[in-house]
């Protein structure tokens, strides 16, 4: 796959992909979603964020792409200091990140291919490159046969695959995947994981949040485990 628009950074990039230091986040002034979180992810790494329902996985990922700000602590992603990033620069960072949302966020009034095209148009990709990239990504996730279906015509698992495809189609440097297998059966989940690993082999950094500790442990990658907003384990 050729990176036409965003040349990949040199492999031995000195800055880590993700660097979170002493991050805390209180919601509504009294609900501690995250407490004193620190960890770093080098470029090219594959890291699981493990944790039960409400442990703070989604909140942590949202900090990484600037959808939320820490109350204290610092967050650096791909070399940018996210919380202090001016509104005008946030798009530049987000353009390099592929996000799989826990709630899919598909556009109901666009087809599967339309949802992927929408993203490429939004970041101003050269029009002649779009159809090829869309088809390639859909093929990779095994949903090319649903290319022209509307989201409501898809099963839950198929929708989830489309939302994964939408994150991949940008050919990002960093993938943040939030519970990307919640609606997919065990065999499908392993497939998704293999696709993520494949991207990772080619140099993409992957951070995947999940409550499925079996899946994470069986893949023998580093796991950062959250519990009630604190890092309770970081191994692998």
């Amino acid at each position: 796959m050729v990176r036409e628009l965003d040349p990949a950074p040199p492999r031995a990039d000195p800055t880590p992909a993700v660097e979170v230091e002493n991050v805390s986040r209180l919601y509504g002034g009294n609900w501690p979603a995250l407490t004193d979180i620190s960890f770093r992810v080098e470029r090219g790494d594959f890291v699981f964020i493990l944790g039960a329902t409400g442990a703070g996985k989604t909140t942590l990922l949202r900090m990484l792409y600037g959808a939320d700000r820490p109350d204290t602590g610092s967050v650096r992603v791909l070399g940018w200091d996210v919380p202090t990033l001016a509104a005008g620069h946030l798009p530049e960072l987000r353009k390099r990140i592929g996000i799989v949302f826990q709630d899919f966020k598909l556009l109901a009034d666009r087809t599967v291919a339309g949802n992927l095209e929408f993203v490429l148009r939004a970041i101003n990709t050269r029009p002649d490159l779009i159809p090829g990239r869309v088809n390639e990504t859909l093929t990779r996730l095994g949903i090319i046969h649903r290319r022209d279906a509307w989201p409501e015509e898809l099963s839950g698992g198929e929708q989830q695959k489309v939302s994964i495809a939408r994150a991949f189609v940008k050919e990002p440097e960093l993938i943040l995947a939030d519970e990307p297998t919640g609606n997919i059966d065990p065999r499908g989940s392993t497939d998704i994981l293999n696709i993520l690993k494949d991207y990772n082999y080619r140099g993409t950094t992957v951070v995947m949040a999940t409550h499925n500790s079996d899946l994470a442990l069986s893949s023998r990658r580093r796991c950062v485990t959250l519990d009630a907003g604190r890092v309770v384990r970081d191994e692998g």
Partner: protein
Amino acid sequence: MRVSWLLSDVRRSVTRNRAGFLMTTAVQVVCLTLLGLFALASVGLARFTAEARRQIEIQAFLEPGADPAAVESRIGRIAGVAATRYVSSEEALADLRAELGADSTVLAVLEANPLPASIRVTLAAGAAGPEELADVERKLALLPGVAEVFSGAETLARLGRILRVLTLTTLAVILLSSLAVIFIAFSTVESSLRARSREIEIMELVGATRTAVRLPFIVEGGLQGLFSGLAAALLVLLLLAIARALLVPFPLPVGPVVAAGALLGLALGLSGSAFALGHLDQ
């Protein structure tokens, strides 16, 4: 962002709520048409008043036995007088009849023509001010053979008053119509923002620039305004053409009206969009 994407985006937005879009555009067209008609009427009346002031005629009514030619020649020698014209008693009655129109039946019962003959006096272009007018009138009244002097001064004053009222009304109409058009553009764009909030969210999350997110809405409001302005301009021209056919022939200012309509509509539409997007930033 490519122009074709932009336009297809705007088309999507418009067709999503076609009925609402048509209705609000229609209201914009009505507002801008009103604005245009009032503005043109004001300009027209102002021109007419200026012209009337130039062409003002004083009527010097003759005493029953007076010799029109003698009086006319004496009048011609008064300073400031440019031309004179004799109007006989019969012509005066015919004029009155024409002026009264349907009401002229009241004249049918006259036993004899009660209107006297008169000499109509036109002043020179440089001497048509209110003071020169009063001066010439005073001199005319003193001439032998002249029974009474009537000037258009009062009519002119009335015209001036109408012009003032019309100008004020026009200013009010311009202000209100413009506000209405801006408000409509605002509400069009705001409802598009609401309808497409999901798309906006995703665009922002995947890294679209501020411009790429906002441009389609700016264009939507601007295009609606532009379209309304052009439609209003055509409507105004149509009404003018009808008026011209029914009343007097006058030149149709096609170019200026279309240009003004387009520019004004575009500007107001863009302002409304800008307000709505300001809303988005909060």
